[in-house]
């Protein structure tokens, strides 16, 4: 069995007293979605910066406290660059190391937000998201893989996630649902 998914980035190396950074595809340290109480709806950490759930939650709390009042898109926290965006009752965060190209992180955040916005038909809020968690899981899986940016074009992401629409074929409806709709129809025919 292999170790945790965190194929984490061996970015930091120090030589000759001056830090230099190994060029690498590993860009994203974490992707978070919190609700308006700062509770975790989704969190994916790609390296060992915060190894335990406890440390992660503490970090999320800190991040939320520092960002939820201001709508200012970017911050530096605990030595990490955090780009964020909020919509109604959702807070989206993408986290990278402090020497990472901020615009790259921003492109990940925008891609995530725009993909979800399309998938939820512009209805980006907590309730809609909770009803489409599988869509979120699949979308993040297409955008970032183990810290590497896999895709940054929301159209591509939505296309690849290829969520099935609401038109459920009859065979897949449950007995209750069939009964329910039959009942409704009878009711209407009687009332008429």
């Amino acid at each position, binding site marked *: 069995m292999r170790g945790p998914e965190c194929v984490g980035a061996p970015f930091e190396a120090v030589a000759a007293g001056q830090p230099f950074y190994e060029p690498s595809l590993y860009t994203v340290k974490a992707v978070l979605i919190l609700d308006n109480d700062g509770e975790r709806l989704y969190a994916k950490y790609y390296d060992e910066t915060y190894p335990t759930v406890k440390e992660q939650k503490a970090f999320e709390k800190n991040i939320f406290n520092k960002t939820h009042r201001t709508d200012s898109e970017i911050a530096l926290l605990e030595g990490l660059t955090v780009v964020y965006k909020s919509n109604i009752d959702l807070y989206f965060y993408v986290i990278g190391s402090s020497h990472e190209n901020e615009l790259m992180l921003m492109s990940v955040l925008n891609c995530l937000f725009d993909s979800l916005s399309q998938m939820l038909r512009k209805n980006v809020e907590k309730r809609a998201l909770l009803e489409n968690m599988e869509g979120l*899981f699949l979308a993040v899986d297409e955008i970032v893989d183990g810290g590497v940016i896999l895709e940054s074009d929301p159209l591509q992401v939505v296309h690849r996630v290829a969520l*099935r629409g609401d038109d459920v074929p009859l065979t897949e409806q449950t007995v209750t649902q069939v009964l329910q709709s039959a009942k409704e129809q009878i009711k209407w025919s009687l009332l008429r």
Partner: protein
Amino acid sequence: MRHSCMLLLCWQSDISGAPNTPGLSQYDIYNLVICCSQARIFNETPINPRRCLHILTKIIYLLNQGEHFGTTEATEAFFAMTRLFQSNDQTLRRMCYLTIKEMANISEDVIIVTSSLTKDMTGKEDVYRGPAIRALCRITDTTMLQAIERYMKQAIVDKVPSVSSSALVSSLHMVRMSYDVVKRWVNEAQEAASSDNIMVQYHALGLLYHLRKNDRLAVSKMLNKFTKSGLKSPFAYCMLIRIASRLLEETEGGHDSPLFDFIESCLRNKHEMVVYEAASAIVHMPNCTARELAPAVSVLQLFCSSPKAALRYAAVRTLNKVAMKHPSAVTACNLDLENLITDSNRSIATLAITTLLKTGSESSVDRLMKQISSFVSEISDEFKVVVVQAISALCQKYPRKHSVMMNFLSNMLRDDGGFEYKRAIVDCIISIIEENPESKETGLAHLCEFIEDCEHTVLATKILHLLGREGPRTPSPSKYIRFIFNRVVLESEAVRAAAVSALAKFGAQNDDLLPSVLVLMQRCMMDSDDEVRDRATFYMNVLQQKQKALNAAYIFNGLSVSVPGLEKSLHQYTLEPSEKPFDMKTVPLATTTVSEQKTELAPVASSKLPEKLAPSRQDIYQEQLAAIPEFQGLGPLFKSSEPVQLTEAETEYVVRCIKHTFASHMVFQFDCTNTLNDQLLQKVVVQMEPSEAYEIVQYVPAASLPYSQPGSCYSLVRLPEDDPTAVSCTFSCTMKYLVRDCDPNTGEPDDDGYDDEYVLEDLEVTVADHIQKVLKPNFAAAWEEVGDEFEKEETFALASVRTLEGNTVNSFKKNCLMGIVIAPDWLYTHSVA
């Protein structure tokens, strides 16, 4: 059975659209155990994709919330899930891949899905192939990787971008696990790099670099190729810029190289991401001239007025870094920065102000400080540290402004804040005190106030130490006693001990305070902590003697030995028990590095790793020399010189010498490198002819010196005993060795060789090699301690004392035009008018 029926019921009511209370997620009411028991629905025939999907979603959701999942439950749920591969529902299948990835660490036997995943990976459905590759690579180990190698190669060059990208990224993840296997896919990655898809290009480039990064030539070729052909992907361009700047740094190539031209050309790229990456790369290059910086600074200036906060932030943060080294280069942006100081993003505003503080004139300082104090409470600790660093730099630049700064700092000190932040402020105040004697009293007063309510032991002890050093020499030392003694009453052991030491220093230097200090000491002797009591008893006894020399030796000047050296000596002593007590004199002296470690004002990036005390260069040499049997019994290493080059840079053999000085011997270490790939040198010795009465005791040859592998040989020399003043000497050096020609390709040497020699440049031993900088924290006390009999008044014409250069001039400056240096057996005291 009934239990599961109930669950089923509750489950059905759930999906038939039972109303949820708003704000409460429908997932919250489940926990993993229930979820797993629900996983038995997976076994129903026919499979109901919608219900199964819902359960998988819940399992992943709960795992994501950090719920714990037992191995048996996970394995059971996992086995049930494998059956879902029979369904052809797309979303369901994709969720199965995700579940496999999530469970890879928890459940055993994930390996059993390998064949299903392999089938999907090579199948016709493009929607499945990419995710299947990623899931498969996640659970594969080195042995199984061989089995899927063929498919991976095909997938890398697949024409569907998502398949190719997935294969490339997964390969990158697996490099760490099985480098040798992945290395065989270089050709395929090469082919993928010329793909039309921008992400595939980026991933292929990343993988190629990762596989070749240790081969500088291959990296350079690759860069050459891609910079010429041009790429479409902005991500790939960023990667290329990083690789290029890394290569420039490693080769220390001049800025006229094509790589630099490439980076500069990226400043005109149409993607902001690439332009910023290039500008940032240029700014971070060491030794960049103002002219080279100018184009980068001007694109950053443009970004300052961007509507995107992230871009403004990136620009001003990078400008802030430029301002540290080249304030004048940023002056042109002052107007744009002025506009940013009211930015709604406080991080941007802070960075703009701190940059202006570095580039602006003295007159603007007051205004900027006022502006920043209006919102300092709103910004994060990281940025507060940046502000403090800017203030610290400012105080060095405009010493007259120290009163404004000191005021500001003391206000910041009173606010809430974390350790890093408080430490930065304290360090800043201390550096102001050291540089502006007139600010000393106010500074100390602020620090005294701070330790009255300070939760950080490290800071409290640091300040107490400072008070002990500076306090006794102020006009009214008595007012500090109260603050110090309060610590003894109120604080933890470490702080109490530090307070006792500080008190002792007051007692030792101020005769009129001595009686009161003794009374306080008496009280400290009843402390509950051993260390505090021991210190108090010790100082009490020393102070009662009322002897200057004792005070100096035991109170003012602490240990002057190197800490790692002391640790090693003590360890050695415990390994070899002997009757003799441990002798402090066998420990090498500490070299003065403490005062010179002015940390660079790099903003933030607070590393989470604890800083490890690195052994000094000298400690490393000490250890290396001790390992050579010929050099045992020389005593502690007194000093190691900087390397001296004995050859020109581009010659057949490169030799440099490090001079190690011991009490009555010197060891010359010759680091030789053979730069001829058709020669193997053996029995290499550097023969030395002294000009003075130095005696060559022994040569330790380097056994063999193959191409480009450095080796060391040594010469041991005894210092002349009868004439202690004969400290300088010139040695003429010749390197002698046995040459064996060898095949440059295989490195196979011929059987027989011939003797040869190579004349090196002369080596000088000078007074500086016998002089060591030592830490004397309290110079005045050390001066008194030396006493009158050694005092000499002499006038040095500094220009002629060439051999002292570097060694002492620095310390002269540091210690207010006076320096003290000690040689092994005799003492030099210099005073410079």
